[in-house]
């Protein structure tokens, strides 16, 4: 007997959400669109992280590495050589993928798991941050300011926020489809098997090293695309914005909150955490740092009482 579950209607729910997200901005001011864009950026980044951290169970604490590689690659190519950020985005993704494969190979080949893998990825992000602070090509601590050229699609620059909004919405639709594809195929089953029990997976004929590297390569490629978008949206990047620890934390917070290893987890997590963070900031703005404390409390409560995230809760209802 199947339980009547709210989650069964996820297709309908997501269809309605998508429709709302498509229409809503027409009635919104620029500030709210900005908030929505940030929600969607981190929903996208969280979903990218989820392929490795959620499905495969390899908890990366350094996804800022891939974010930063995407942002810096497209920005440097655009500012130095005038190459369209769209092309730079793909090239950044490929570079990031190779770095991901390298990090993955080093870590997984020598059996780094759990907290050790997390620390290793954190160390890599820090290495990139320090490198970006010291290399002239990346503009050192000054960062890189992207010159405005007015609204131009090839230059990935728009004066209206709404264009960015629809681009990042499309990114999200894309990643939901990708995640869905992974989940319903052999790859998804294999990644989950590796997460649950690596020895058993290996005993059943799964080349665990190979599949973990596949997971990190997909994840790092997708994360880099989000980095490029972020750079093109803010027109400014620096080593801390890109490679900083806080960025890595922002990336994995949403899928953990929403539901690890689920298609919509990062999206739902971002949809709830985003406004919550803005709201607490607005309400408690007078007391500096207060909103972060409240935010922290909410996170702790959720992690204790909803270990499977918001999606886990919906599945139970």
């Amino acid at each position, binding site marked *: 007997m199947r339980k009547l579950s709210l989650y069964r209607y996820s297709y309908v729910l997501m269809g309605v959400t998508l429709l709302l997200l498509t229409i809503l901005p027409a009635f919104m001011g620029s500030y709210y669109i900005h908030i929505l864009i940030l929600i969607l950026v981190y929903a996208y980044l969280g979903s990218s992280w989820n392929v490795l951290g959620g499905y495969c169970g390899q908890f990366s604490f350094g996804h800022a590495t891939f974010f930063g590689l995407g942002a810096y690659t497209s920005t440097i190519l655009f500012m130095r050589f005038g190459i369209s950020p769209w092309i730079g985005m793909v090239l950044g993704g490929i570079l990031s993928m190779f770095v991901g494969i390298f990090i993955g190979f080093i870590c997984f080949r020598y059996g780094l798991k759990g907290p050790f893998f997390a620390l290793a990825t954190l160390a890599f992000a820090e290495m990139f941050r320090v490198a970006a602070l010291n290399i002239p090509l990346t503009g050192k601590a000054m960062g890189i300011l992207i010159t405005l050229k007015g609204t131009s699609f090839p230059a990935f620059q728009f004066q209206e926020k709404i264009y960015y909004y629809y681009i990042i919405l499309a990114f999200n639709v894309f990643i939901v489809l990708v995640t869905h594809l992974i989940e319903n195929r052999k790859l998804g*089953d294999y990644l*989950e098997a590796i997460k*649950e*029990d690596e020895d058993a997976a290996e005993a*059943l*004929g*799964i080349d665990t090293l190979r599949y973990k590297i596949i997971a990190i390569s997909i994840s790092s490629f997708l994360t880099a695309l989000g980095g490029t978008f972020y750079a093109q949206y803010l027109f400014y990047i620096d080593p801390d914005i890109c490679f900083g620890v806080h960025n890595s934390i922002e990336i994995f917070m949403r899928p953990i909150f929403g539901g690890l290893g689920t298609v919509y987890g990062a999206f739902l997590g971002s949809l709830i955490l985003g406004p919550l963070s803005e709201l607490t900031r607005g309400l408690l703005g007078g007391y500096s740092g207060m909103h972060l404390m409240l935010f922290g409390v909410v996170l702790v409560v959720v992690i204790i009482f909803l270990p499977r995230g918001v999606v886990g809760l919906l599945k139970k209802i």
Partner: protein
Amino acid sequence: MAMLEVQGLIKSFGGLTAINNLNLAIEEGEIVGLIGPNGAGKTTFFNLVSGFLKPDCGKIIFKGKNITGLKPHVICRKGIARTFQIVKPFPKLTTFKNIRIGAYHRSSSNRKLIDERVEEILNFLGLEEKKNMLGSDLTIADRKNLELGRSLATNPKLLLLDEIMGGLNPVEQGRMINVVKRLNQEGITSLVIEHNMRAIMLCSHRIIVLNYGEKIADGTPEQVAKNQNVIKVYLGDQENVRD
């Protein structure tokens, strides 16, 4: 030619020699019992054959090919499947998915054929009613069943069964013995580690006894039961018995 041949196998952990110059052969179509006191090296031997450990010395030959030191997933694809003494179901996956993960690398990548094969295994093991239950929700008997089902899904020629009857009641044990025998009729060779003497005597064609990593007896269940060395190992020396 033997299906599995082991020559001069040695494995030590620090100062402890777990497997000491072991030679044995398993013929195709046999059910061979592997017994011995705790710490005799039975599970270490399984870990060596299935690739989870690398031997210090010696050769493992499967169907005429040297498989010594290959990775576990490669050995699995060559046709040796194992179960774990401490069962390792994927706790958050359903029984069906647990078994399907083993079935993927069979020749056909057709999803429908794979799912049919999984159904077949579920039926064979009597798990069809539990196919939507999570691995973590199964009873110990069902977990052992699932462990076996997953290995079967990989289409093995040789099964290494590590105490699949441990913790089962006599009825469940009887069922498991039947399953092993039926698999044997279908052409699967099995090597079975078991502490339950009744069970191992009932299902094995041949029994190999290990003690401190060395083979001390090899023969039919009747021969082994009468073997003085085996009795000594299990019950101790006559001289040490005081009245």
